[in-house]
């Protein structure tokens, strides 16, 4: 060690730059070890016990390697830079700015051990700088907070993932299981032998007609009710009751809707179990959501649009027809399309009101495309899935999975259309 130091000609200088201290405050040492010991307060240093304890911000200690003649360390290039933060508790740290040492003796100890390992080799005109840590860098408290924040974020992220991943896993599994059954024939062929053979054409057409009919009834009424609530209704007790009714209608369980459909449409109105009764039931069920989404879409049209139109002399209805509805049609459509998906997927409201367990359509001709009249019972995809799984003993698994996948695909694609429409129209929104 001594040989190595002699080979690097010159001496070591400890230079302490402390605020409020005038003039150079340094001392020469023959070896780096002695210089570092002096820094730690173990050797002698100009008569003082310690050159600096770096308690204040922006102080620094420099151990420079100079030739004998030189006395100014400011010409030297810093080769290593370490940090000390005396406000920290504990004894950890690795001397970096993010994780400084807690005091100067600790710093000296670590620097000595590093020098002993040969990691610190100062060439002439190089220096080691030990700085007190700058302000506005993370303290241990902040780091603790940041860590807890990272943990919180991680936990919340895991919660979200635990919702998303099982769904994708399940959907993937369903698709894999359904793969053997999925084919063009599966979609376009009639079910045979109680649905254990053939395809799902009849339920598919039935679902189509159910959704179409229910929307034909629910959409106009729902949109007009939304217009009423947003444009006409004043804030009085009666309209508050209407609002409450809408909210509660949305919360009525689907099986209670089924009971209502059975009591009102099938029995009291004398429709019997039929496409008409089932779609009326579905339309009552989808109505409140259409009302709510229409209302939200209308409420998004700025008040100033209406005022401008009124000032032109237009009546209330003219304003609604020419300004409010055209500007909110996207939102209204989105809400209606979402209800297509909902109506297609519902099973409970149609079980007693019009869904047939097995009722194949004609294999070709008009009956293939328009098999159902308003008075006839219909098959529906959702009901078909329930029947295949629960009512029939030996339905092939692949067909069950296939029906489920077609139903999910139908619903999700309708939803995706609605979402895409919304994103597209929102990007074009002018206000």
């Amino acid at each position, binding site marked *: 060690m001594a040989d190595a130091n002699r080979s690097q000609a010159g001496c070591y200088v400890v230079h302490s730059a402390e605020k409020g201290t005038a003039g150079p405050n340094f001392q020469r040492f023959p070896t780096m070890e002695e210089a570092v010991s002096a820094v730690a307060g173990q050797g002698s240093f100009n008569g003082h016990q310690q050159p600096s304890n770096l308690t204040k911000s922006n102080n620094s200690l420099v151990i420079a390697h100079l030739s004998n003649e030189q006395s100014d360390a400011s010409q030297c290039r810093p080769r290593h830079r370490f940090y000390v933060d005396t406000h920290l508790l504990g004894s950890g740290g690795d001397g970096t700015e993010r994780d400084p040492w807690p005091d100067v003796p600790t710093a000296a100890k670590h620097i000595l051990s590093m020098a002993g390992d040969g990691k610190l080799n100062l060439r002439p005109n190089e220096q080691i700088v030990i700085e007190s840590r700058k302000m506005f860098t993370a303290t241990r408290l902040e780091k603790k907070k940041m860590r807890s924040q990272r943990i919180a974020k991680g936990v919340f992220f895991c919660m979200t993932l635990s*919702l998303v991943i099982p769904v994708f896993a399940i959907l993937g599994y369903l698709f894999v299981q359904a793969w053997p059954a999925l084919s063009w024939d599966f979609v376009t062929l009639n079910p045979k032998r109680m649905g254990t053979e053939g395809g799902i054409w009849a339920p598919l057409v039935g679902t189509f007609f159910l959704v179409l009919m229910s929307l034909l009834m629910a959409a106009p009424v729902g949109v007009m009710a939304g217009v009423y609530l947003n444009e006409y209704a004043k804030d009085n007790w009666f309209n508050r009751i209407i609002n409450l009714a809408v909210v509660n209608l949305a919360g009525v369980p689907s099986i*209670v809707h089924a009971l209502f459909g059975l*009591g009102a449409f099938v029995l009291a109105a004398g429709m019997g179990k039929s496409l008409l009764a089932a779609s009326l039931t579905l339309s009552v069920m989808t109505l409140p959501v259409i009302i709510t989404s229409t209302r939200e879409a209308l409420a998004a049209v700025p008040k100033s649009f209406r005022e401008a139109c009124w000032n032109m002399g237009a009546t209330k*209805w003219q304003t609604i027809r020419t300004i409010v509805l055209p500007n909110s*049609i996207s939102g209204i459509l989105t809400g209606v399309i979402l209800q297509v998906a909902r109506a297609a997927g*519902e099973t409970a409201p149609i079980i007693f009101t019009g869904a047939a367990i097995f009722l194949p359509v004609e294999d070709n001709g008009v009956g293939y495309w328009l098999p159902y009249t308003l008075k006839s019972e219909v098959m529906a995809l959702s009901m078909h899935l329930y029947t295949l799984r629960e009512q029939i003993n030996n339905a092939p698994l692949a067909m069950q999975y296939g029906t489920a996948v077609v139903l999910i695909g139908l619903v999700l694609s309708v939803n995706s259309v609605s979402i895409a429409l919304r994103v597209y129209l929102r990007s074009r929104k002018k206000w």
Partner: protein
Amino acid sequence: MASSNVADVRPNRKGSAFQSFRQLVDSVIDACEPIVEWMIRLSGWSAIVFVLAIFAFVFAQAFFVFENDSMIPSLWTKLDFVEFFTSVKWRPTSVVREQYGIVALLAGTGAVTVTSMLIAVPLGLGAAVYVSEFCHGKTKETLKIIIELLAAIPSVVWGFIGVAVLGPLIIDVTGSPIGVNVLNASLILALMSVPVIVSVGEDSLKAVPDSYREAAEALGASKWEVVYRVLFPAAKNGLLAAVLLGVGRAIGETMAVLMASGHKAQIPGGLLDPARTLTATIAAEMGEAPRGGDHYRVLFLIGIVLFALTFLVNLIADVVVKGIKGKQNG
């Protein structure tokens, strides 16, 4: 879109025939204003009509017989209401004596609802916080869309997943002899009600003014502290409403629970016991119950109980939400 309306009234359209036709149509439509306004009004009132009609028709089916165009009260006198609300025995088709006690069914609904909420509320609120506070831009949009799609999966498909996928899995993992039980139904219900909780919860977190967050961060709070100390107290009503809406959805869910809960009218002793809910009972037995018989009427009566339960839950949720709005205005 507004500009296209402006363009319509500019007099630069060629052809006076078209213009006059258009004016004709416009004047006809405007002449219809009173009619249209009345239609709009009637539609607006329809929501009340339907709520009342639902109650009235279900009530009528439960309690009255329609014979020769006159209503005869029937179930009032025959049904033992004490037994209905206190007996555990649901034996509608017993040859000796039919018993209609809904305690076991209520217990089934309760068990499934509570268990599913124990899963769904922490996960749902956690996801709501994550979506609302911890992610931005594309990630946020994507997650919201995924959760929206999660809400779109039909309940019968969830039921199918419960029976066909989750059931065997539960048998494998827990060694329970049956896969369709309270646990299965609760897991399925949790996944079904989470989207409601997430979207309503996220809305209520979004409704907290940004100045709250900024003030807390300026005081040195970390994001987690902002969520825990500032957002949760500020949005607690909205979050409570989110939970209540989830509960409402869980109580009212029919098909998924019918398929996944095991369908046994008993008070479940544990997570791995099968159970049966109010909704599932109606769905399963209405087809077999002879029309006009006691069994049939009791099923409608259960419908009224369900209607009342969800009405209550939704009413509380609504009042809670109104509470927030009133406070914010004031």
